[in-house]
């Protein structure tokens, strides 16, 4: 269980997150929604212990993440970042193999087990055929899938993703979301994902955390989170629900 308790974060004088409290249960598939600059990425970074909140704490099964060494963190939380590195020369296979780092000892080579886990994760994300390609030879969608494969190779109970669909066309957006839903269903992995497309969240993520102006204003089922009134308040657009879809217009 991932628990966020009274987390406040500020950058200089500017408050980014204000007193956020929420619980994410094991096996949840939860979207983090909110307008640009409302602190979604910062929240993920706090959860991944890449930065420390000014106040409050984040715990996994009652252990504060700030007390966990990086190696143990990497066995518990995998983080797919917003902008994958494209200027490095490692093949997709080598990249995914890095996901096994938290389980490897120094001076020791990868075990047969590491290799088979990598192959399995790459097949699952449909990237096995790309294993010898470098980032510069891959398309945005392919690279994103490789990054997801690396996160899967970490075999963590919790997976964080920061806008994994933002640079992808609609078909690839669906492909990534289906993949995540599949992982969530079959492996019971807890997934927290920042998305911008409200309809993607509505379609795939049963749970939602809605952030607005540094505060968490709703945590619960996505269907109940995304009411026309709340969407108007947060995103300042008019929305109406038609056959389970949101129709969105400018004000």
């Amino acid at each position, binding site marked *: 269980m991932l628990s966020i308790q009274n987390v406040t974060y500020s950058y200089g004088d500017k408050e980014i997150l204000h007193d956020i409290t929420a619980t994410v249960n094991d096996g949840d598939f939860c979207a983090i929604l909110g307008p640009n600059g409302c602190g979604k990425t910062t929240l993920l970074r706090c959860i991944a212990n890449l930065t420390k909140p000014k106040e409050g704490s984040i715990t996994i099964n009652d252990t504060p993440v700030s007390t966990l*060494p990086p190696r143990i963190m*990497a066995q518990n*939380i995998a983080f797919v970042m917003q902008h994958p590195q494209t200027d490095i020369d*490692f093949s997709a296979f080598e*990249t995914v193999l*890095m996901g096994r*780092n938290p389980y490897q000892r*120094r001076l020791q080579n*990868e075990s047969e087990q590491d290799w088979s886990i990598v192959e399995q994760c790459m097949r699952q994300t449909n990237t096995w055929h790309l*294993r010898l390609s470098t980032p510069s030879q891959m398309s945005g969608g392919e690279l994103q899938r490789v990054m997801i494969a690396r996160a899967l190779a970490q075999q963590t109970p919790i997976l964080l993703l920061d806008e994994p669909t933002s640079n992808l066309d609609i078909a690839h957006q669906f492909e990534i979301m289906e993949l995540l839903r599949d992982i969530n269903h079959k492996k019971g992995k807890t997934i927290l994902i920042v998305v911008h497309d409200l309809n993607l969240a509505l379609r795939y993520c049963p749970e939602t955390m809605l952030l607005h102006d540094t505060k968490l204003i709703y945590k619960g089922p996505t269907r109940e989170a995304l009411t026309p009134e709340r969407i108007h308040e947060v995103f300042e657009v008019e929305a109406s629900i038609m056959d389970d879809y949101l129709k969105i217009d400018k004000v």
Partner: protein
Amino acid sequence: MKAPSNHKSHTVILSLALAILTVLAMFLCATMGVVDLDMKTLFQTPIFWNLRLPRVCLVVIVGAALSVCGTTYQAVFRNPLTDPYVLGISSGASLGAALAILMGLEAHLFGIGSMALVSALLTILLIFKVASIGNRMHTTSLLLTGVCLTFLITAVISLLMALHHDKMESIIFWTMGSFASASWMDVWIVLPIVILGIAVVLYYSRDLNLLLTGSETAQSLGVDVEKVRRRLLFFTTLMVAFCVSACGVIGFVGLVVPHCVRLLIGSDNRRIVPLSIFAGALFLLLCDTMARTLIPPNELPVGSITSLVGAPMFIYLLYKSKRKL
């Protein structure tokens, strides 16, 4: 895909072969020189035992150290243009040496070398102090501090030389780097530090790969980025300081040997680090032997030979690998 076990044993076998090659090359280079004697007589002279042998040993040690440091810096700073001297250690050492020369300490056994070492170590302390924010080290600040300090110290050395024309030549010669005065003492001083430093880099060689993906990614993949970076920088700068103090500034080895190895075997640092030990050693051995045998009885500055030989070699490799893409 290659089987996992092959990968490591390939590197081990290749490293062993290169190690044997290096020892043979050292022996061969030690037999060559201005004084041309047949083998049997040569082995009975102090020229072989007390001049040439310590010299080739020091050359090999420094070559290995510089190229391992270059490999480490290029990964830690994620910048292909960094070389072992980028943090200003070399200029720090040069200042110490220049002061020693001005104070007339040349005649002392450890005069120049120890002054150079002390001022190199002080430079390291200063840079680390400036670039640390709390207990975190910011790599860009570190690089910029190093570059600025290099300019500052170089300016001071220029001023010193302008004010002391008579000593100008010996200061310039020291900064160009040379193994001409190598002794067993130098070897015994530099060797332990280099062995220790290389061992530390080998120990963290997988972390170097992860650091290349960015510090946040490395952290999220389980690397204790601050700790690893601090240790790597500490031990590599120490190696550089000792090397520079022993033989002056020898450019190009630390910048280009890692790249050559990378072009030949790919970007996995677990292979680059062990192979660059021997690539650096062999390359510098070749250059130093050329420096002392090409125009006998004079000696050419080894630093210019490294560039003269290395630059075309590197451009060729770069050109060839571009065509492969």
